[in-house]
């Protein structure tokens, strides 16, 4: 019961996010808009109910389950892109390596600089 009550809150914020997306013609998905709005709402409210906390924890723990059906699709449409696999693989592997490196270095650099600044 309590978890369902929290789920209802999440669904309502998702519907709110979708409404914003459609009515304001935003290029961002309703889920992300809902996430932004619920975060601000909680900041204003100053606390989060147990119902909502347990519902969100439950959903986050099965995030992988929810993306699986989409992932499976690649195995069934693979032959459409034959001849491009080298480009795809290189872009994903090398590209991701470079972007992870960039993120870590940038974060490290700016954080350390900020800490030195404070000292």
């Amino acid at each position, binding site marked *: 019961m309590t978890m369902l009550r929290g789920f209802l809150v*999440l*669904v309502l914020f*998702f519907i709110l996010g*979708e409404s914003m997306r459609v009515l304001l013609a935003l*290029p961002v*998905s309703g889920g*992300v808009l*809902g*996430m932004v*709005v*619920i*975060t601000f709402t*909680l*900041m204003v409210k100053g606390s989060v109910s147990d119902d*909502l*906390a347990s519902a*969100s924890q439950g959903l*986050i723990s*099965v*995030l*992988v*389950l*929810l*993306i*699986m*059906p*989409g*992932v*499976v*699709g*690649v195995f*069934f*449409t*693979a032959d*459409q*892109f034959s001849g*491009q696999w*080298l*480009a*795809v693989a*290189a*872009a*994903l*592997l*090398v*590209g*991701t390596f*470079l*972007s*992870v*490196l960039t*993120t*870590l*270095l*940038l*974060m*490290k650099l*700016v*954080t350390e600089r*900020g800490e030195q600044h404070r000292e």
Partner: protein
Amino acid sequence: MSELFSRLGVLADTLAATPILAIGLTLGAFFAGNWLFARIGRPLWLPPVLLSACLLSGVIAILAVDYQAYQQGARWLTVLLGPATVALGIPLYQQMHHIRAMWRPIVVTLPIAATLAAVYALVIAWALGATPEVLASLAPKSVTAPIAIGITEQLGGSVPLMMGGLLITGVVATLFVDLLARLLPVTDERILGFALGLNGHAIGTARAFEISHTAGAFASLGMGLTGVFTAMILPLVFHL
């Protein structure tokens, strides 16, 4: 005997007409993947999502389930991605004090890293002769699935290819974060979490929650911000 066979045929049709078969298969593969993952000693390079997806594809192929029909049925699960994305706001709120303390590195890193995540992949794929459709499918590779689907459709890419790219990106981003964290070295959980979410979307975020709640919150933040930022920037950049 032939009576039984015809009834078996009817049974298959009856089950295939409802989403319950697709839901059962997906749930079954999810738990089987997790079980197998624990049994083979939790290797980082083979996360549960990849195991489960391979199992599920195998079963769908063997049972000769129509992929489109499966996808239709599985919508009962995938529709929950919306509320699940909203749910990421809760750890974000709970960890707000950590995030406030890190606002400067986040504001500096996010636009640069999120843009480069797409640009690196696009330049490499383009140099190796990928078609515009493939490029459009690769561009949102670091963006969480519900947003990435919207971006790819807008750019004219293939959603299944994009999802495959997303999966591989999530897996290798998790690997590279672990590897580079040791080489550089970076030990700050907040930085690791942010890098996991920014580059590895939901898969990276799932991994970050394994590290700690704080890393998970930073991953949610990285994932959310990357999603919003990329969704707004990419359609503009891509048309240049």
